[in-house]
């Protein structure tokens, strides 16, 4: 890592922004490492979660938002449960993802794409159509064969239905999407 | 001075020497910032606080009164705050009957180590009194 100039290269607003949106105080973290110790994903992260917290304390916005770690967090809540400083770490990770998405800097494109596909399905049908999501994701991501090995197993056990269930109030669900998007635009 | 007076309301605090006055000292030593409206009268024990002092203050110009003693069971004089609790509760219920908002009077228990609680109490109480505004605005000018 390059040397960080703590006089000029610290984004104080970012610390504020995260604190405000998450309702958590990053200064409470004393870097004990318990979150990293318990995190099932530490080995896949580019920055272990305690370092994400440290980067946050140091106002290193770019490093954090460009990191894979924030997308590989599955919100399993282990960090939050065990934090001795009572910081809701998982919620901070959640907030970082939201900010990264808002600022269009998603390092893990596939994960975001999967989430988007999920939400599209939801917006369209009101509920989730698992097969549809998988197919749409495979198409969009170019991973045409992702989990294709599972297909026969699923089929043979009759675990899926071939048409999406559409709910009557799907327009109402869609409206939630729209209202939210309108509101988000207004804020921009 | 009039400018200053306009920004502040008159809040009288009766604090027992052993716990709450110490708690206010602890808050001070810890530099816990607080609003400046409160004026503190040190008494040995919350049991020394005759409810008439509170009435006197409210009738004569105070906008709020705060009484704080040791936590129940933790009184330096064993039982003083137990008597205080009954008397102050009686007053708390009587004030609205007189037409004085009971929220102008608060009594609580704060130990010498609870600087943080003291800060919170002063801040919240001052805020509340400000929300209620001056008590004496509509009344006769005090002599």
């Amino acid at each position, binding site marked *: 890592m390059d040397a960080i100039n703590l006089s000029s290269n610290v984004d104080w607003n970012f610390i504020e922004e995260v604190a405000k949106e998450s309702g958590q105080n990053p200064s409470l973290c004393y870097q004990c490492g318990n979150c990293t110790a318990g995190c099932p994903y530490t080995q896949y992260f580019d920055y272990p979660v305690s370092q994400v917290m440290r980067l946050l304390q140091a106002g290193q916005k770019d490093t954090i938002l460009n990191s894979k770690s924030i997308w590989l967090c599955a919100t399993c809540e282990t960090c939050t449960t065990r934090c001795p400083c009572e910081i809701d770490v998982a919620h901070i990770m959640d907030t970082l993802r939201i900010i990264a998405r808002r600022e269009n800097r998603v390092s893990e494109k596939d994960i975001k794409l999967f989430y988007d596909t999920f939400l599209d399905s939801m917006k369209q049908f009101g509920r989730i159509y698992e097969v549809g999501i998988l197919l749409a994701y495979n198409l969009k991501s170019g991973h045409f064969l992702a989990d294709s090995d599972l297909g026969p197993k699923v089929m043979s056990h009759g675990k899926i239905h071939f048409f999406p269930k559409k709910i009557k109030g799907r327009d109402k669900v869609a409206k939630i999407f729209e209202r939210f998007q309108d509101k988000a635009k207004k804020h921009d | 001075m009039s400018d200053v007076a306009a920004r502040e309301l008159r809040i009288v605090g009766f604090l027992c020497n052993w716990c709450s006055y110490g708690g206010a000292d602890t808050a001070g030593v810890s530099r816990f910032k607080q609003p400046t409206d409160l004026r503190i009268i040190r008494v040995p024990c919350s049991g020394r606080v005759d*409810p*008439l002092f509170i*009435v*006197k203050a409210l*009738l*004569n110009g105070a906008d709020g009164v705060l009484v704080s003693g040791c936590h*129940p*069971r933790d009184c330096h004089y064993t*039982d003083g705050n*137990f*008597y205080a*609790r*009954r*008397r102050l*509760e*009686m*007053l*708390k*219920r*009587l004030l*609205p*009957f*007189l*037409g*004085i*908002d009971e929220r102008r009077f*608060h*009594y*609580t*228990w704060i130990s010498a180590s609870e600087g943080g609680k003291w800060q919170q*109490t002063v801040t*919240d*109480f001052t805020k*509340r009194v400000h929300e209620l505004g001056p008590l004496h605005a509509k*009344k*006769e000018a*005090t*002599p």
Partner: protein
Amino acid sequence: MISQRLREAIAGVFSEVDVALAYQQGFDKLHATPCFMTMPEEINKLIWNPLCVHNLTSYLPSLKKKKVAVVVKGCDSRTIVQFMQEGLINRENVVIIGIPCNGVISVNKVLHETNHEPIEDITFGENGEITVKTLKGEKTLLLSDVCPDKCKTCQYPTPIVYDRLVGDPITSDKSPDSVYADIKEFENKTLEERLQYWEQEFDRCIRCYACRNACPMCICQDSCIAETRDPHWISQRATLSEKFMFHMIHALHLAGRCVECGECERACPMGIPVNKLKRKINLDMKELFGYEPGIDPEDKPPLYTFKVDEVTIKEHKI
């Protein structure tokens, strides 16, 4: 007739006591007045009728070292119980002659009914009817219309303590809920209305201290802090805040002790509802501590005692 039986009852205990307290005819037909009897022949002065409004027990603490016989109504008897709780009398020095009472009259209300005409005569019928004779003629009133407010909700028509009872015990037919109905109704007013009410009432106070002097529980008398300079609680200035403060001193010194005999209001020349604050506090004492003054000699006034865990007092949040 009750008066006669009362005379007999007092005559029966006269030899045991230094003085007997009862009622005699006052300066006119409308007034009774206390009489202090030390000689047996004085017994014939004694009367009993709804004009006997005074709470004679007020004199007991000052006669603490004497043997006294005293005539009490139900309401008055609560004062004796309260004195016992506070150790202000020696019970063994007092012979209590109790009279069950159906209510007394309020002189002011009678005068109001007769347009303040001088009263020539007043007679009391069997069923609570009162015949008042003035120069303008005769008028019949009902006791229930001209009694003080306390009689309208009286819960204790028969004395709570007595040594001799003259007449048959009466049980109250008034609802217990009615006692503080006026207090609860007052609480429906807005804060501003309440403050305004008290300011108007107290502004009329002339600080004559009649209410204090009439109060059987006001034990300080000459030491009353309303008049001392050490401590110097209030000045003699006639400002509203000083008058207000005087009434607060009176009320708070009676907190959890007032037996609601109403002597303060009867004595007030300005018609200020002096008893109301004390009754409000009594209501709270009942809710908080299940305490009612002047009922059980073994009770303790709630503000002179405490419980380590007060279940009814919740911590207040800001």
